[in-house]
């Protein structure tokens, strides 16, 4: 019986040690199996009715942004995205593509008409692109290098400054 008690005590002590050293679950995010891998293809029709293929954008940094008009943080980050696009429209070193997530093209069209924004927006009614990128909760953005590798997953709203900083960071480091 003593043996059982000792074994039990050790097991419980180990359990407590494990539990005591766990960090709250909220801190585990931003990870993605995609990081360091080629960006999944995005081929589709934009709101403007043009064809879109992510592969055409090789040689430029691409921010792939997933959003929905019903999502409040997405609406909040919209001006930041617009600023980023305006900044890089002239230099052409980076661009932005938004992919709809659980949102219809009509709703998004109305939103863009009202709030502005002239970057390509790809409709994705069934969410296939979202699943390819492992999107959980919009807004989510992915930073894709000029060579087509996903290097960052940004969960939640982003700012233009934040993205620029990240790009600068990666450009400074040898790829």
């Amino acid at each position, binding site marked *: 019986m003593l043996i059982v008690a000792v074994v039990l005590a050790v097991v419980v002590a180990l359990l407590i040690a494990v539990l005591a050293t766990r960090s709250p679950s909220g801190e585990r995010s931003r*990870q*993605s*199996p*995609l990081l360091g891998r080629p960006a*999944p293809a995005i081929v589709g029709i934009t709101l403007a009715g043009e064809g879109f293929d992510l592969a055409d954008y090789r040689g430029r940094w691409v921010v792939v942004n997933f959003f*929905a008009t019903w999502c409040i943080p997405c609406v909040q980050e919209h001006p930041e995205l617009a600023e980023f696009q305006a900044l890089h429209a002239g230099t052409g070193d980076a661009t932005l593509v938004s992919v709809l*997530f*659980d949102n219809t093209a009509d709703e998004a069209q109305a939103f863009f008409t009202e709030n502005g924004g002239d970057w390509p927006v790809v409709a994705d009614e*069934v*969410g*296939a692109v*979202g*699943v*390819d*990128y*492992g*999107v*959980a*909760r*919009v807004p989510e953005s992915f930073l894709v290098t000029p060579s087509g590798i996903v290097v960052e997953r940004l969960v939640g709203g982003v700012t233009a400054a934040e993205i620029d900083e990240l790009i600068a960071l990666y450009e400074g480091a040898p790829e």
Partner: protein
Amino acid sequence: MIDWVRDPRVRRWGWIVIAALIIVSMGRATLEAGPPRTTAEQVRVIGATLKCPTCRSQSVAGSDSAAAKAIRNEITQRVEAGESGDEIRRAISATYDDVQLIPQASGFEGLVWILPVFVLVLALAGVATGVARWRSATTRHATEADRALVHEALDKR
């Protein structure tokens, strides 16, 4: 109780019939349980083994969140393309972290499957040896004092 049940021979035959009925019906129920038939059923079965990435602990099959819907669509497409459940699960976990709701059977994760079986076997063995020990323990005999107590209690009645 009804009289004929009291006859041990009748009862023996009764038990044989019971055993036969149960073996036949359980056998049929087990052997004929085919795989899910429709696409929707397959999607549900596969979705139930994947965690919805935005919900806290619901499965893709059970959630109405946007991500779960998108993953369900993806599963439907892949099922229609003829992929197997394992292939689909692998494909989904290539883009989503920690979506598998079933731990793997190998490696460290295998412990979650093996440990309970191990503990159950150990406990049953413990009970068996315990019972054996208790049984072999010397039987106590009532003392005169015990008998007196019993008589006293019986007299009170």
